[in-house]
């Protein structure tokens, strides 16, 4: 069992390695955490996730852009792959679930992928439908998984028109489900017009927006 000091050192190392997008370091530190008895949940939430929070702040301050975020995500996922099998499921609360997808007819998924990283890092269970998702699938997957939030992305002015139909399908299935939308042509006014419960301008804002929506539910 790692000492308190060693645990803190590993957690800080995981944080720093994510921020510095040093994938080799996150992998080494994830192995060290397991080998030295650091709780995997602690390593994820207080090492990796805290690192992604810092990354989100850097993105919000326009010190980091998409290239940096992608590499931070690579470092994060490399360590998550090692740590997740060691999670003691029964010791944790049921994670919140979100369905993510880019609407039918639209293959632009960088923004959605960054949103996925932020939710993964925040401990949510993400059901990623990827891109060009048939409009019916959002409601079908919500029903199948019981996700509290459905997140919908569109980059094109054409594909954004699918959003109100998707939102109606989701709400018809369960009016308590919260819908979060985003993407270049969307703004908060359009989101409200479409019947969405929330809007996020970028990946960094998405988790907070979802948490607020769920708290209101």
């Amino acid at each position, binding site marked *: 069992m790692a000492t308190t000091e060693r645990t803190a050192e590993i957690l800080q190392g995981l944080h720093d390695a994510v921020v510095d997008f040093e994938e080799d370091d996150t992998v080494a530190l994830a192995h060290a955490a397991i080998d030295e008895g650091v709780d995997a949940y602690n390593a994820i939430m207080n090492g990796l996730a805290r690192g992604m929070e810092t990354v989100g702040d850097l993105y919000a301050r326009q010190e980091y852009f998409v*290239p940096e975020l992608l590499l931070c995500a690579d470092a994060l996922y490399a360590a998550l792959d090692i740590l997740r099998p060691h999670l003691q499921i029964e010791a944790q609360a049921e994670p919140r679930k979100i369905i993510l997808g880019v609407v*039918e007819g639209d293959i632009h998924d960088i923004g959605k992928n960054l949103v996925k990283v932020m939710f993964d890092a925040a401990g949510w269970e993400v059901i990623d439908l990827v891109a060009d998702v048939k409009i019916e699938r959002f409601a079908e997957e919500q029903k199948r998984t019981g996700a509290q939030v459905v997140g919908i992305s569109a980059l094109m*002015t054409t594909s954004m028109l699918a959003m109100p139909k998707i939102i109606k399908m989701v709400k018809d299935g369960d009016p308590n489900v919260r819908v979060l939308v985003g993407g270049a042509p969307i703004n908060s006014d359009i989101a409200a017009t479409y019947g969405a419960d929330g809007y996020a301008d970028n990946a960094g804002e998405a988790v907070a927006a979802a948490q607020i929506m769920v708290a209101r539910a």
Partner: protein
Amino acid sequence: MSSTRVFDLLQGKHVDRVPLYHFLIGFCARNVGYTIADMYADPIKSYQAQAWTFEQYGIDGGPDYGYASYGGWEFGGEVKMPEGEWQQAPSHVTFPVNTLDDLDSLTLPDVTTAGSLPLAMEFSKLQQQNGDLITVILGGNFSVAGNICPPSMLCRWMLKRPDDAHKLLRIASDHIIDVVRYWADTFGADNVVPNLWEPVAANDIISPRQFEQFVLPYIKETNERILAMGVKHILYHICGEQNANLPLWAQIPMGDPGLVTFGHQVTLTKAVEYFGDSCVILGNVSPALVQTGTPQQVYQACRSAILEAKDAPRGFMLMSGCELPPMASPYNVYMMKKAIEDFGYY
């Protein structure tokens, strides 16, 4: 259809009013009852639909052929023509470069046969027959590179494998030169206006520092080589959020005058400040507003744009900030013309 005002602006002549310029391929398809795929797969239908719609809406300038995913198909990837209710333009199915080995074996394609270029050439011959501007639409250097491989891969390479990013950008740049030279040889360099679109280099994706390192040198060199062929005017669509890049864009020669088009993210005042002395300014009405707004909102946005930029030193053309949405309401599109009629005369 009349391109007179556009030609006059390019020649430095007085125009009676602000021209209305558009890129609205999908909208034209809907307007005349064609599919959007027709517009990209059939140059004759594409030209017809645009010419008829331009006449109907009083649009200056002429029809264009092209799409934002340019580059993937031409280098051996696969694109899908738009289909269904929600697609606007051809999109990637596969990218030609997915690994470093793919990059190592990447070669410049034959521009007379590659991808969409035979269709684009057929379209440009229609432009020539009808006395239009002869345009060839390509991505900007960074966007072409980001269509040859997934843009997320290009982003990662910039930070982790910069030499490979530069290698890809070199190939993309040489390809753009090859295409423009083909058009210049066919139609005469001084009759060709290359239209280059650069969405991937927006600050929504990369930093101004990355732009300076990976975008600026390639676009600058490419434009210098294009202008050295005898091309007089280059149109650059500086797409999306590019405010932090503007001082760098301003270092790039665009011709005399060049043409630069902006989305709503860049104010026209700023556009005139950086480019007004050397370029005709085009923009910047939000496409989403034209699609979702009321006619009154569109009219007011156009009025503001006209009053903000109509006195730009080299001229101003009213345009939506990116492709006008296919599903925009016809009356909203008419509002753009009405605003010009009411506020655009000199």
